[in-house]
């Protein structure tokens, strides 16, 4: 076994993946293993009893949305009694921001890796304010979800069906040259997405007021592209998973209670977890660190694929998250080169003379240097339904990388 060769294979599969946004379809039609009483969530698998406020809220909301339960109380009771099933999005090729809760009839983005044929999925982004992904489930929230499913989702599905798809690798590469890092800042990417999808929507949506409504919604939401970007990153990192002897990290995800990682050369369902940390950052007015929930969401898939916090050097507009000066942003990216195996061939950063983003977290380097990946993240309120309270930086606990290294050594008899 040669670890470096295995890692080369894994990282090449990751960065050479060509994720194409192909379709929007109901989860149960496209997501492998999806069924009516199954609720997918962000992060490593977790049982109801250990779920944090925002995740519980999102699950309640999804149960109400699906009509599985008629009230919060009923939903909670059913969840407690095990009358519905939960599973990690990652076990089904899916990812979702924050709570990441995805249910059977929700429309999801379908991204296909043109290089290897693997597919990845992500739900639609709801925008700001009171939203399911932060655990809100009021009527208003559910109403928006239905509109998204029945109007927005249909428009997107028809639009994509009328095209050969949207090349997400090219979109991300371009957005990185426009001040996005692809995780916390997606303004440029969302505009690029709108630019690409708008003519298609105009072509397929016959009702002018619906067309206007849909375009307005996509344009107002600077996070529109986050979910397709995450699915693209998932398609990339899944392509790198399962390479025998590889120490490349292929998943980093949080469920609001635990932080979990998976490693290419280890099992498909072999998670290494520890309690998630509380992100440190800047808060919206009226909120403080005390309101923050432990780290939550699958969006760390962006860092896993070499963008997000790893590409901080290219996103000067949000440097305050990392200390306040462009120099700090530069240093943040330079630090991530320390623990990655390669530099991206396709995602480059003008501020570093078009150097490729740090790509492919190498378990060995993380443990050797004691440097954990930097993740840019939104911060959820610890209570269900309050929503986002800030944004900042978080790192996974070092011990999960140490656990993974020990398991690797055991599996490969080192």
């Amino acid at each position, binding site marked *: *076994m*040669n*670890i*470096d060769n295995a890692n080369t294979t894994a990282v090449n599969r990751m960065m050479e993946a060509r994720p194409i946004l192909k379709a929007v379809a109901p989860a149960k039609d496209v997501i492998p293993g999806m069924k009516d009483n199954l609720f997918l969530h962000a992060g490593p698998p977790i049982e109801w009893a250990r779920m944090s406020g925002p995740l519980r809220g999102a699950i309640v909301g999804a149960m109400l949305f699906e009509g599985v339960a008629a009230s919060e109380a009923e939903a909670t009771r059913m969840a407690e009694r095990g009358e519905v099933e939960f599973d990690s999005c990652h076990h089904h090729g899916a990812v979702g921001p924050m709570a990441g809760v995805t249910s059977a009839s929700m429309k999801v983005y379908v991204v296909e890796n043109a290089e290897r044929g693997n597919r990845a999925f992500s739900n639609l982004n709801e925008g*700001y*304010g009171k939203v399911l992904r932060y655990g809100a489930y009021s009527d208003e929230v559910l109403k928006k979800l239905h509109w998204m499913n029945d109007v927005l989702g249909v428009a997107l599905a028809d639009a994509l069906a009328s095209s050969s798809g949207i090349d997400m690798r090219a979109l991300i590469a371009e957005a990185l040259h426009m001040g996005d890092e692809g995780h916390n800042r997606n303004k440029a990417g969302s505009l690029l997405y709108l630019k690409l999808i708008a003519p298609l929507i105009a072509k397929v949506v016959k009702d002018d007021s619906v067309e206007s409504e849909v375009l307005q919604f996509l344009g107002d939401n600077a996070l529109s592209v986050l979910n397709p970007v995450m699915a693209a990153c998932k398609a990339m990192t899944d392509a790198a998973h399962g390479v025998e002897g590889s*120490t490349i990290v292929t998943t980093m995800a949080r469920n609001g209670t635990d932080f979990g990682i998976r490693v290419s050369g280890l099992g498909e369902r072999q998670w290494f977890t520890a309690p998630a940390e509380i992100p440190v950052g*800047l*808060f*919206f*007015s*009226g909120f403080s660190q005390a309101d923050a929930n432990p780290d939550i969401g699958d969006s760390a898939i962006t860092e896993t694929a070499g963008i997000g916090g790893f590409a901080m050097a290219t996103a000067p*507009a*949000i*440097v*305050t*998250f990392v*200390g*306040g*000066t462009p*120099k*700090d942003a*530069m*240093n943040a990216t*330079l*630090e991530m*080169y*320390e623990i990655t195996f390669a530099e991206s061939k396709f995602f480059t950063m003008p501020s570093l003379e078009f150097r490729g983003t740090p790509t492919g977290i190498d378990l*060995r*380097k993380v*443990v*050797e*240097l*004691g*440097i954990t990946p930097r993740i840019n993240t939104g911060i959820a309120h610890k209570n269900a339904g309050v929503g986002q309270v*800030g*944004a900042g930086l978080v790192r996974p606990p070092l011990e999960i990388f*140490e656990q993974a*290294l*020990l398991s*690797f*050594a055991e599996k490969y008899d*080192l």
Partner: protein
Amino acid sequence: MSVIKWNARAGAYYDSVVLMQLQRGLLELSGVLDAGVVMATQANRDLLAANNLLPENISANPDDLLIVVKADDDASAESAIGQVDELLTRRKSSSAQQEFRPRSLSAAVKQLPEANWVLISVPGRYAAGVARESLELGKHVFLYSDNVSLDDEISLKKSAREKGLLVMGPDCGTAIINGIGLGFANHVRRGLIGVVGASGTGTQAVTAQIHNLGGGISHAIGTGGRDLKSDVGAITAHQALDVLARDPDTKVIALISKPPSPDVATQLISAAQSTGKPVVVYFIGYPAPARKIGNLWFAVSLSEAAEKAVEQLSHKGTMSVNSDQLSVSSRKGYLRGLFSGGTLAFETMVGLQASLSPIYSNAPITNYQLLKDPLKSEAHSIVDLGDEFFMVGRLHPMIDNDLRIRRMKQEAADAEVGMILFDVVLGEGSHLDPAGELAPVIKEIREKRIGELGELEFVAIVIGTDEDPQNLQSQVSTLEEAGAKVFRTATEAVEYVSLRFGSKKENEFTPVNLEQLNQPLAGINVGLESFYESLIAQGAQAVHVEWKPPAGGNERLASLLAKMKSKKEN
């Protein structure tokens, strides 16, 4: 009772991150209870309302910047709002911006690709690992750390030698490369003297004194104290001599060490002779074999080493034995010395021990060099035929040449013998014509050997004066006519013999790249930060690695990581 003041700015776009920071700035002001700074979208207004921060009757569009301050009193609120612009333009002072400090060697190399040296001063048990990684990255190593095992030192130096790289150390305190001091080093001018030093303070003393005497240093290459032990075999010192020999900017070399192992000393002296440049040797505490052997000068103190090195800069044609006296190929086979004078024999042995080792004798320098049987030579041997062992029932060889003639024939019959060295002591009491008896034998042996076993060289030391009864001049010419090389002092003979046996061996190692060594020094420092600061202060390019023990010092993880690295070679 608190008050709320607000201010709206039309069309002023700020990123939400900037606004959150402004908000934090406002909260730090005195008298401010709460603050909200947002673009006045409906969602944001709802958010303000939820926190009791939305004033009534505000008029603002979604594109407006809305600043709301809740304070103890009007004055505090007004003052806070008045400071918004200042807060918005507040920058971190530039001194707070720090260059990225890499944590690993590989990142440091990317940051300073032109780095040709790695300075290592981490705790000993980690030092070998860092050194190994440096060599793999193609960098020379200055290894200040001590407590590196001998095995590690040997394997590091062997690996470096294969790659044409230098490992200076472990426990190397001092070096000067291209005018830049590494570790502890004095400020000395650049110049034509190269130093190879197995002793840090020794190197400092010599380089400082060279400077004080007006000379300068091309490179001072440290080796670490154990380099000249048998186990290590002076790998670094040999590489250093070789590269300084090839360096056109080095005219004179000084070789400084604590006493080396005898076998190592012999090889080093032979290598020093091969440089073809004047080399001043000072092996502290090691008896100087001579003042000078060919291009080698032996010093008896650090300051004398510096003086001699500086002196040699102004000397031309310093070889007293002309190189044309030496045949093209160097002498092969063994030396056999057949002496009538015990002191002459001993002085010759002392002189030769640096270049020929070991030399066996019936009256040796050290016991392990004692001939098992005085009647039978072994390897290189110098026999004192005037020893009482031979004197039973026999005249002293200064009077009677018979014993020596028979021994000469005995030695000549041994094909492995390449040179016979003997003394002829004239004067009152001695044989009246020793040359007359020895010359025919020498002639006969030489002719016979040329036909059968290969050439045999004779070298004679003739001690006497022009007033001696034997006629010094005719004694010398008789021996010379018979084909012997004649010297009038043991010193000259020692120099000649040393040079004849000095081998111009082809290096068996990859030569250190001279061009690279002469490039401006750029260093990666791993360990003591003061070494980094010193490089920067000297105007060298440098990067400091923020080094920590691998896996935070967890030995189990660290050993697994080491295995996972070595998998590369499978």
